[in-house]
């Protein structure tokens, strides 16, 4: 699905990613953990194509294509989805209209017919039920005036609507209450298939009780310094990151 090789990236001349290697295969769930400021969101931004970041070295292959060669919107249309750590508000644009546009842009890119009104409404109904998103929110402007938790839920709703191949969830669990956490995790699990993959970025082992990862990686100072099974998350919870820092060859 995605093969990241020796990825280096700068912002304003400062190196943030210092050689990331990671491969995620179809059907897998990977968790990335790591202390604040270690570069987790930077990695997701670079993969999604945020221009502020300059890739100085390395390569990313996504579903056989050179990801770094694609414009951000084409990466999305190819099936890359990022649930933002801080979802953006777009006043005046309804969630529904936003999603319909997004779906049709993707369909046009894939030479498919635009979605019919009926089909679309069916999808909205089904997917908003999946993440138990209030129908009212679907008609409101994108994220405008949403509570922190509602924004996160809306990200997963969008993900469900866009059916990506690879979804990166950047701290989708933070700010969610216990029930919401279960609902969101549940949604993610239901969308899981042998053909797609998920990267969850989180600080809390708690989420991983719901979304069981096949692998856990620790990102530290721009590098993946340790990888393991889901037990690694438990170990981290217990020992904190100092343990890794000490082990790290840096």
């Amino acid at each position, binding site marked *: 699905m995605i093969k990241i090789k020796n990825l280096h990236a700068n912002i304003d001349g400062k190196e943030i990613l210092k050689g990331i290697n990671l491969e995620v295969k179809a059907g897998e769930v990977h968790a990335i953990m790591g202390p604040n400021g270690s570069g987790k969101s930077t990695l997701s931004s670079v993969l*999604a*194509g*945020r*221009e502020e970041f300059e890739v100085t070295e390395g390569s990313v292959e996504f579903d056989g294509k050179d990801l770094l060669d694609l*414009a*951000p*919107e084409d*990466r*999305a*249309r190819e099936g890359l*989805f*990022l649930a*933002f750590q801080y*979802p*953006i*508000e*777009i*006043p*005046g*644009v*309804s969630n529904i*209209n*936003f*999603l319909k*546009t*997004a*779906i*049709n*842009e*993707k369909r*046009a*890119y894939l030479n498919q017919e*635009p979605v019919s009104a009926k089909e679309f409404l069916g999808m909205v109904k089904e997917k908003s039920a999946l993440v138990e998103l209030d129908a009212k929110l679907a008609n409101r*402007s994108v994220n405008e005036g949403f509570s922190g938790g509602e924004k996160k839920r809306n990200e997963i709703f*969008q993900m469900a609507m*866009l059916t990506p191949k690879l979804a990166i969830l950047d701290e989708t669990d933070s700010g969610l209450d216990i029930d919401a956490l279960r609902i969101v995790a549940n949604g993610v699990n239901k969308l899981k298939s042998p053909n797609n993959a998920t990267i969850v970025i989180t600080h809390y082992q708690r989420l991983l009780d719901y979304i069981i990862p096949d692998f856990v990686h620790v990102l530290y100072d721009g590098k993946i310094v340790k990888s393991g099974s889901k037990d690694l998350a438990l170990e981290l919870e217990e020992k904190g990151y100092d343990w890794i820092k000490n082990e790290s060859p840096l």
Partner: protein
Amino acid sequence: MAYSEDDLKKELKDQEYKYGFTSNIESEVIPKGLNEDVVRLISSKKNEPQWLLDFRLKAFAHWKTMVEKRWAHVSYPEIDFQNISYYSSPKAKKEVSWDEVDPEMKATMDKLGISMDEQKALSGVAVDFVFDSVSVKTSFQDKLQELGVIFCSFSEAVKNHPELVKKYLGTVVPPTDNFYAALNSAVFSDGSFCYIPKGVRCPMELSTYFRINEANTGQFERTLLIADEGSYVSYLEGCTAPSRDENQLHAAVVELISLDGAEIKYSTVQNWYPGDKDGKGGIYNFVTKRGICHNHSKISWTQVETGSAVTWKYPSCILKGDNSIGEFYSVAVTNHYQQADTGTKMIHLGKNTKSTIISKGISAGFSNNSYRGLVQIHKNATNARNFTQCDSLLMSDQCGAHTFPYIEVKNSTAKIEHEATTSKIGEDQLFYCNQRGISTEKAINLIVNGYCKDVLNKLPMEFAVEAQKLLEISLEGSVG
């Protein structure tokens, strides 16, 4: 609506100003220059009655004493009024039947998307087409006549309904009102006239389409619309002009009279040639639009302004009658080096009068976009209300957005609310859209349309689609 986003996309491909073509139609143009003889010449070419010539001459005499006031937040070089031709008319005689219309003229109308044939009947729009200075053809006259609705060119109205013209002309915008209104009153060549009789709800949208074709001519049209007691009319106005390197002057006057219990909805999609991306050429659009509301009547102005190099216009309402209502909904877009200074005046004279102002300015490139509005509550206007919302959206770091709200209250029972916001389309909003597969152009569109929704919703359906397209074209390449 059958019209899909993709139709829109297709249509917009490589589109800059698609109305920039010139029609090869033989015209009669009078020599450049302005003096009393020119005013007389225009009047005699139109076989006007003495009272109208007198109206013109008086206006001209006054104009000569005036100096152009430069209070608007726009700048343009001094206009040489002697270097403009004040009358141009397609040479062929005025057609009687559609079949006799010059084929080139028909082709022009086609290109502009105006059709006079019966098809248009389905969409319920009657059209008057003003080409350069002269009204070419008005459709559906017969149908309207059955109801007593008069919808014709201004010249025809002078000929066939002189008593109405004489009674109302210059009563809302006196010839002395301002520099360009005085000029227009002296040299106006044609325009539209409309009268809705008592109690009649005009069953179709009335639409006038203005087109400047000839170079070095000015366009000075005059619109007079009278809604008699208890009547209703929705009126649309569209404008385009060829792309030319020289600036051209358009100075129109529109007067609306809404008698007791009447309602006028006046919508404009202004798309005069805006000049090129370096600010060369384009129309100077200096327009005076004003309406008077009698008891229990209403005037609603809706405008989408995307064209012209320089615009100043303030469609206004004089709320003279008790319980009358004035509304102003505006979207003004400026890109490249365009300048717009637009807004409204709501003059509350009667009791329980209400006004609403919603203004959405969008500035891109190096343009300047100003909202200028006056809300005036007079001494006797008890319980007057006004709500004003004026928002600016910035699309670049080099453009300017300004608001100049003036509020004058002489009655303590007045309630006035004013809200204003300034926002910028953020990089992170665009990236968020990109990440969902939406291209930057489309994202800007979504955001701009969302921003203008409250105004676009006020337009008749057909115009709303057109307006959306226009916004898209006007802002193409404005971010990035």
